[in-house]
């Protein structure tokens, strides 16, 4: 029995991202395509997103133009490609508050939003520091903190304190504090619904960008002798990132293809994928019982 369907939906991409920014220390090794994506989960009566991307209005457009971000599409258009609308989404799980993951909450007017309390509190703390320390807070848009005030008033903000099992039936949250951000988290889907699942998927947020961060090359198993290498950016501790990578790989039962990194360009090599005319892709990670493929 498979409870949930999972799709990775690209909403923009950078064609020539420096590898050193994706894999720590990989200097002078060229560039690669870096997709920007969120994940849609459908099943057990729920439609859930992991992250919501950013909004291309105002400074977002300036940012995209200056950094060679291509093909940005609104969630309404992206989600319509698999036959759903943002209004149908009832749950948003924010892996962290960086603007390219949490910057489009207004597009999901009916969703309850889950975020680690530590992520929110520490970002507010960072914003309270003198301007010369703004590096610590500049990945988060204060507009998204302001949006959380509105969510609180509407009763749609759910603050988490670390790990939480069954945030939706069969879907667990794990805190990964002081890693890529102050209060990151990753999502584990037990797709057979049982506690000791044999059918888990791990949605890694920005804790893993690509297979190489887990010592892999796209194969199911790590490359022999390879070691974990952290992602190119951590506001806090690389040590915590490496230890979190171990937890993520363990949660996936050692099968690296059971980890779904949303910035990994090679998902298309391992899962059914459709590329749209604008260059954006939809990757179908798995289908729930009775669900029809959206990419064929």
């Amino acid at each position, binding site marked *: 029995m498979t409870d949930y369907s999972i799709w990775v939906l690209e909403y923009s991409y950078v064609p020539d991202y420096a590898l050193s920014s994706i894999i720590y220390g990989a200097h002078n090794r060229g560039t690669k395509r870096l997709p920007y994506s969120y994940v849609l989960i459908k099943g057990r009566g729920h439609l859930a997103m992991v992250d919501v991307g950013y909004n291309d209005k105002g*400074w977002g457009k*300036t940012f995209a133009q200056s950094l060679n971000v291509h093909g940005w599409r609104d969630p309404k258009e992206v989600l319509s490609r698999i036959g759903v609308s943002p209004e149908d989404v009832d749950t948003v799980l924010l892996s962290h508050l960086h603007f390219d993951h949490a910057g489009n909450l207004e597009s999901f007017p009916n969703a309850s939003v889950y975020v680690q309390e530590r992520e929110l509190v520490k970002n507010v703390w960072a914003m309270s520091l003198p301007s010369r320390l703004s590096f610590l*807070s500049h990945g*988060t848009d204060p507009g998204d903190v*302001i949006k959380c*005030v509105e969510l609180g*008033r509407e009763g749609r903000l759910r603050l988490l304190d670390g790990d939480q099992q069954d945030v939706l039936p069969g879907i667990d949250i794990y805190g990964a504090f002081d890693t890529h951000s102050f209060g990151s988290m990753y999502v584990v889907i037990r797709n057979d619904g049982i506690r000791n699942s044999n059918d888990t998927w791990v949605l890694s947020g920005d804790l893993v960008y690509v297979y190489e961060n887990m010592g892999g090359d796209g194969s199911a198993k790590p490359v022999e002798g390879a070691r974990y290498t952290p992602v190119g950016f951590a506001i806090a501790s690389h040590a915590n990132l490496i230890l979190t990578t171990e937890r993520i790989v363990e949660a996936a039962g050692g099968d690296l293809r059971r980890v779904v990194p949303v910035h990994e360009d090679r998902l298309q090599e391992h899962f059914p994928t459709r590329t749209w005319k604008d260059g954006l892709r939809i990757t179908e990670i798995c289908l729930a019982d009775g669900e029809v493929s959206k990419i064929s």
Partner: protein
Amino acid sequence: MLVCSTFSSSIGRLLDSAEFIFNSDDELNRLSAQLAISEQYTSLRGALGLIAGALLLYRSSRRSDFSYVIAMVQETERRAKASLEILADHRELATSARFADACIAAASLTGTAAKMVRESLLVNGGGLEQAELAYRPIKEAYAFLAGASGEHDGCSMVSFSSCCCGQAVVGQAELSR
């Protein structure tokens, strides 16, 4: 002594360069004003996060413990007041009056929001319901700052180099100009 003389000659070269770059005191003053305004932009950006955080904490706090909320509101008011004074002092020399005016409007609205939250905490204040009326000026202040956001002014709402691995891409974009 050798060190000192090398140092002196380095300073001399720097001063020569400065004279070359800044053709007049006016130009130097304008640059100074721009830096001061940029500093206030970043300070106000943080103040908005702070006052929003105060409202979030307000909602989750028990009536007896608002010490953190009060501290956050006080810091927001201090920043708004300081920004208004500094921005008023430098507006005439700003390279972009529109940008300076946006910051002034944001500072004023941020101060208004902080005052509303502070007054809601008084014995006869309106409590959370009144405090959350500050949401409107906070949103308006944010809109002014967001509208003025631009990497080239040294003022941005977010920085790609502080989140999803963007440093090198920033470099590429700079190099391609």
